[in-house]
């Protein structure tokens, strides 16, 4: 196993220490997460990968502020999390675009909440529409879009709000293989331009290796981090990258780890 690569303290954006989450019902107790320690650096693209039930979604939702940890701390920019907020944008697997708003209005949603004036909103939404290559669909409603298009809008909507970190929960899980690859390449393009910190969840090993700079492998029962891997590939990636020996080697190692749990 490769030694973990941690960002320097100056570059750390998110600091998770001793994080645990236990679901308690009258009859039983379920430990979703136990003793998670993780540092995430500014501008980093980190992927959490693991089998079902390993707590990766729970961890993401705690980062988003949609759920609360039962122990441990999460600090963003040195300050503890206090519920959800615009500094942590999120993209869900099920798109969750607002169906009554057009594509453009969806992208502008966060800005409108902040009271950004119309012309400025237009400028921003125009910029992101171009980035996700959906300028011609600015006035369309979500029901008229395909899955890949909807996800592009969801990403633009989150980014237009200029969050400190973009949390993505298996965003491409519901897409077909071809669209998935196109979306992965587009996401990398966008990430390079925006330089947002991204925490990405997937169970697709190939996707994890292609997109990220660092991969955290999680295990289930209880949910915990069992390994960390830096991704030894150049930051600019394309279809060729998927064929590189370093790519395949890492895939193989991760697959073995996930299959045998050690």
């Amino acid at each position, binding site marked *: 196993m490769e030694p973990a690569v941690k960002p320097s303290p100056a570059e750390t954006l998110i600091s998770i220490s001793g994080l645990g989450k236990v679901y308690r019902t009258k009859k039983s107790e379920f430990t979703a997460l136990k003793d998670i320690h993780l540092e995430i650096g500014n501008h980093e693209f980190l992927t959490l990968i693991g089998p079902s039930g390993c707590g990766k979604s729970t961890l993401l939702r705690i980062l988003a502020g949609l759920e609360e940890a039962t122990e441990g701390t999460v600090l963003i920019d040195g300050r503890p999390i206090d519920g959800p907020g615009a500094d942590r944008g999120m993209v869900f697997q099920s798109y*969750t675009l607002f169906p009554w708003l057009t594509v453009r209005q969806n992208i502008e949603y966060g800005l409108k909440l902040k009271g950004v004036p119309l012309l400025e909103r237009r400028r921003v939404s125009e910029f992101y529409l171009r980035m996700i290559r959906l300028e011609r669909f600015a006035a369309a409603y979500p029901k008229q879009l395909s899955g890949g298009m909807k996800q592009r809008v969801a990403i633009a909507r989150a980014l237009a709000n200029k969050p400190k970190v973009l949390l993505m929960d298996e965003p491409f899980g519901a897409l077909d293989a071809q669209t998935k690859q196109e979306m992965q390449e587009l996401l990398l393009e966008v990430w390079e331009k925006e330089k947002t910190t991204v925490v990405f969840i997937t169970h697709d090993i190939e996707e994890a290796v292609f997109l990220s700079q660092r991969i955290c492998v999680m295990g289930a029962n209880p949910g915990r981090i069992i390994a960390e891997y830096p991704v030894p590939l150049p930051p600019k990636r394309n279809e060729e990258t998927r064929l590189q020996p370093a790519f395949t080697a890492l895939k193989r190692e991760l697959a073995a780890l996930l299959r045998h749990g050690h």
Partner: protein
Amino acid sequence: MQTATQTATVIPRRKPKKMQIFREISAARTTMLAVASFVVILAAWLAVSMLELVDPVFLPKPHHVLLELIRQLGTGEYWSHIGISVFRVTAGFILACVLGIPIGIFAGAFRAGSAFLEPPVEFIRYMPAVAFIPLIMIWAGIGEWAKILLIFIGCFFQVVLMTADITRRVNPDLLHVSYTLGAGRWQAIATVVVPAIRPELVTMMRLMLGWAWTYLVVAELIAVNSGLGYAIMKAQRFLNTDQIFAGIIVIGLLGLFSDRLFAFLHKRAFPWI
């Protein structure tokens, strides 16, 4: 002797049974069946009344009803009855919605609101509006307000409960997304919950308006001298059953008209569904 037909094998086609579950039928067939339904009712009515199987006081002949209807609609007086009835129904209905919908949204959005508001509402809902008449006469006298109040009572509690139900069905992920885009609680209600429930609210209001119409005659039991309910009861006193039928038909048509209006508005107002 071999003929062409003997060498070709004809596979007999099995005729599909009529009326398969959920199978589509042509528009023509649908219209034909709808028309046939009315024809059957009218034919039965005509047969029974023409054969004088029933006393005409109980069941007037259909053409008498139609003639009476046309005659009434020719008088200015009848149209003022229609007008005042429309006013009472609309006022009671709008009041029930204006008060009931915000309360329903609040109860639907917050568990505490639901726990506090729903038990009494559920309880009062089952009290028949008719039973409130004596109370209403004490509270509001016998003027217009009394009638509007009755229609209001008939609709308000249903509106609250149905709105709360509709609110609870909003996809929680939509709310979560709005939080991650910077929305606070009240912003989330204003910019996510309210827009999300609009189509179902309109459908609910369409149903409720139908209810409101059925309460009209009950409301007009409270000492009236105007309105369609009044016209019907005056006819009853003189055993003018054809007028009673005409009055009921008019109320039915008004209810149908408002229903269709809502259906049309629903389609136009929500292109995103």
